[in-house]
């Protein structure tokens, strides 16, 4: 609501309340006056009735026409008084009706007396019948008495009514005054608070804006005159901001221009400070500008002109510029012991060629060295490839050619034993047995060697490996080869790894079968497989409490055909750990071991995932 409207409404309400108060005062006053008049009339009637009673007595006694007239005139004024009586309440109305009835009867009685024989109207002197007089007198006295008492009663009633009215009026006045006071207070509070609050907001807002914060927006509040003022103020702030901003833009532009000019001056000093030769030469080879570095390097350039090696073959070099084909170019020139790369920029409007020189002597040397190294490397690689091929064909031959004779040795020995064995003495049979055993052993050696060589060449097929599952599977296979062996295995929590499933399986088989083998004959043989993390690396290990090894010979542990225990004690080819090492290396991991004679060995390995490289 707008303040103006609020004011108008408040004033109208004030007016209405005042009118109501005045009207009620007037109405009660009028009612009181009316009651006062009635009281007076009632008093007059009572007095008139008494007077009429006296007058009729006088008339009855003296019987004079004078007295008749007086009575009649008094009665007339009495009648006027009675006629002017007004009654609103039923009790009063009953009284008034009584008064009127009594008045009429009084008149009737008096008239009958007046018109009776001997009355003054008929005969002035005729004496009245005393008996009749007596009756008339008592009748009139009764009527008068009734009139007086009724009029008194009426007067009393009206008086009471007037008292009541006065009380009501006073009460009404108090109530009205009270209501008026409450209304005045309420309207004051509402209007004052509203205006005061808005003005306080406006004042604090303008104080903020006045302090320079042009982004501040004053709360606009209600849709009234103060709200309009706030809005106008906000609009003004925005305009002011725009003006301020454009001024700031202008200032910034000036600063930027100054900076750009400084930058230009700075850039202009570039060729002067540059340690590389920079110059401007026209299409005919006349030098226009040389920076200090160029002057220092080629002091005789201006004098020698086109004969100077710096400008060798100039005519051909600038032909594309002359013909408008291009405006840039690069070439290498040799000046004395140094090589330079020249970068051209042709400014057609001038016209001249800007030459940026760069001493590339060192770079050229390095390029040549690199080229040579590259050639050597390629040569080396070629030789390596050839050697690798040779190795491959060698292993193929080993696979095929060495195994057949072995099989023949073993097979024919067996055939001899089958066919003629019964006729041999035990010593001969034993020696044939040794031949067979060794043939078999050599076969295993060849197989293991081939496996090792294949490991070096085979492609890695990496996938996610359930290490725990793999270890359990391999362990079960090992147990099946010798179900009689007694040993305890403890497989810890083994997180998944990345690797070639077949190779890792081989690795685990070698480590676990070693552990089983080297705990043979040990009381309470125990093999533990576990894993831990060390400096961000996942380490797996296989630990046994077997015969162990001497750390003195650690460097022989992973070598091919290297054995740290005698073969009569523990069979083996001496290739198993070499295979383990090869597999781990192929996966980019590390393998190491800890051991002590007769106190077990622990083999550790890591398998970095592909992402880690």
């Amino acid at each position, binding site marked *: 609501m707008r303040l103006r409207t609020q004011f108008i409404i408040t004033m109208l309400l004030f007016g209405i309340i005042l009118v109501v108060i005045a009207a009620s005062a007037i109405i009660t006053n009028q009612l009181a006056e009316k009651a006062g008049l009635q009281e007076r009339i009632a008093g007059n009637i009572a007095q008139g009735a008494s007077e009429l009673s006296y007058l009729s007595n006088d008339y009855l006694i003296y019987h004079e026409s004078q007295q008749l007239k007086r009575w009649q005139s008094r009665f007339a004024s009495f009648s006027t008084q009675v006629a002017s009586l007004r009654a609103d309440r039923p009790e009063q109305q009953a009284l008034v009706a009584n008064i009127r009835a009594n008045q009429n009867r009084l008149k009737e009685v008096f008239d009958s007396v007046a018109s009776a024989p001997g009355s003054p109207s008929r005969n002035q002197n005729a004496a009245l019948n005393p008996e009749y007089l007596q009756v008339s007198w008592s009748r009139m006295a009764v009527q008068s008495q009734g009139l007086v008492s009724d009029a008194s009663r009426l007067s009393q009633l009206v008086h009471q009514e007037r008292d009541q009215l006065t009380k009501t009026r006073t009460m009404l006045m108090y109530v009205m005054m009270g209501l008026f006071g409450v209304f005045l207070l309420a309207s004051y509070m509402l209007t004052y608070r509203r205006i005061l609050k808005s003005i306080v907001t406006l004042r604090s807002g303008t104080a903020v804006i006045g302090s320079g914060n042009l982004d501040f927006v004053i709360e606009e509040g209600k849709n009234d005159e103060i709200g309009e003022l706030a809005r106008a103020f906000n609009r003004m702030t925005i305009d002011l901001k725009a003006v301020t901003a454009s001024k700031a833009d202008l200032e910034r532009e000036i600063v930027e221009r100054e900076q750009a000019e400084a930058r230009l001056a700075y850039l202009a000093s570039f060729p002067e400070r540059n340690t590389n030769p920079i110059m401007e030469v026209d299409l005919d080879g006349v030098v226009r500008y040389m920076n200090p570095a160029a002057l220092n390097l080629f002091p005789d350039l201006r004098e020698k002109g086109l004969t100077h090696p710096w400008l060798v073959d100039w005519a051909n070099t600038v032909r594309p510029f002359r013909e408008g084909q291009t405006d840039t170019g690069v070439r290498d020139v040799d000046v004395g012991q140094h090589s330079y790369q020249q970068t051209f920029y042709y400014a057609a409007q001038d016209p001249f060629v800007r030459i940026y020189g760069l001493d590339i002597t060192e770079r050229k040397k390095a390029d040549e060295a690199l080229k040579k190294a590259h050639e050597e490397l390629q040569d080396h690689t070629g030789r390596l490839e050839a050697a690798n091929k040779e190795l491959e064909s060698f292993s193929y031959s080993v*696979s095929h*050619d060495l*195994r*057949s004779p072995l099989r023949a040795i*073993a*097979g024919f020995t067996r055939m001899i034993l089958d066919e003629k064995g019964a006729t041999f003495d035990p010593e001969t049979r034993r020696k044939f047995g040794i031949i067979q055993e060794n043939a078999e052993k050599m076969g*295993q050696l060849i197989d293991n060697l081939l496996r090792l060589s294949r490991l070096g060449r085979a492609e890695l097929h990496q996938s996610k490996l359930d290490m725990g599952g793999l270890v359990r599977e391999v362990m079960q296979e090992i147990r099946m080869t010798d179900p009689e062996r007694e040993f305890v295995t403890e497989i810890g929590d083994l997180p998944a790894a990345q690797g070639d499933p077949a190779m890792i399986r081989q690795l685990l088989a070698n480590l676990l079968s070693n552990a089983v083998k080297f705990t043979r004959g040990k009381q309470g043989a125990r093999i533990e497989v576990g894993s831990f993390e060390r400096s961000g690396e996942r380490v797996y290990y296989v630990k046994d409490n077997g015969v162990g090894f001497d750390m003195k010979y650690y460097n022989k542990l992973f070598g091919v055909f290297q054995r740290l225990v005698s073969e009569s004690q523990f069979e083996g080819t001496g290739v198993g750990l070499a295979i383990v090492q090869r597999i781990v290396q192929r996966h980019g991991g590390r393998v190491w071991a800890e051991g002590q004679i007769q106190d077990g060995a622990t083999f550790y390995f890591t398998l970095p995932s592909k992402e880690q490289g």
Partner: protein
Amino acid sequence: MNKEKVEILLIEDNPADLELTLNSLKKKNLANRVKVLTDGEEALDYLFNVCAPSGSEGCPHLILLDLKLPKISGLEVLERIRSNERTKMIPVVVLTSSEEEKDRIESYRLGVNSYIVKPVEFDSFAKVVSEIGFYWVLLNKPPY
């Protein structure tokens, strides 16, 4: 199955292996139905001779093929057998000393029925050979 027609073509140039193989087949009474040839060229000539032009009438029921052969290698023999209408359905088992992956893969690519590496140990070898003979000659039903 007509037992008179049963025949194994053994293509093997190593006399020792040959004798060991025959010795093992003898134990299953299969040796008298074996035809032995020692080089690839001979083997192909023989096959194209005995196999009838229509169908595979007269073909051996099994070819035991070594890979390392003079003149024509075992893999080439296999390829030629499989590319000829008359011989392409004959069951071929490669029996070799080679454990090379490339030999194995190539053999299967050319359509070998089985690839067996000769065990070094004689007992295993004898067992393998007799099992091959038993399976392919007595148990298996050829397509012709």
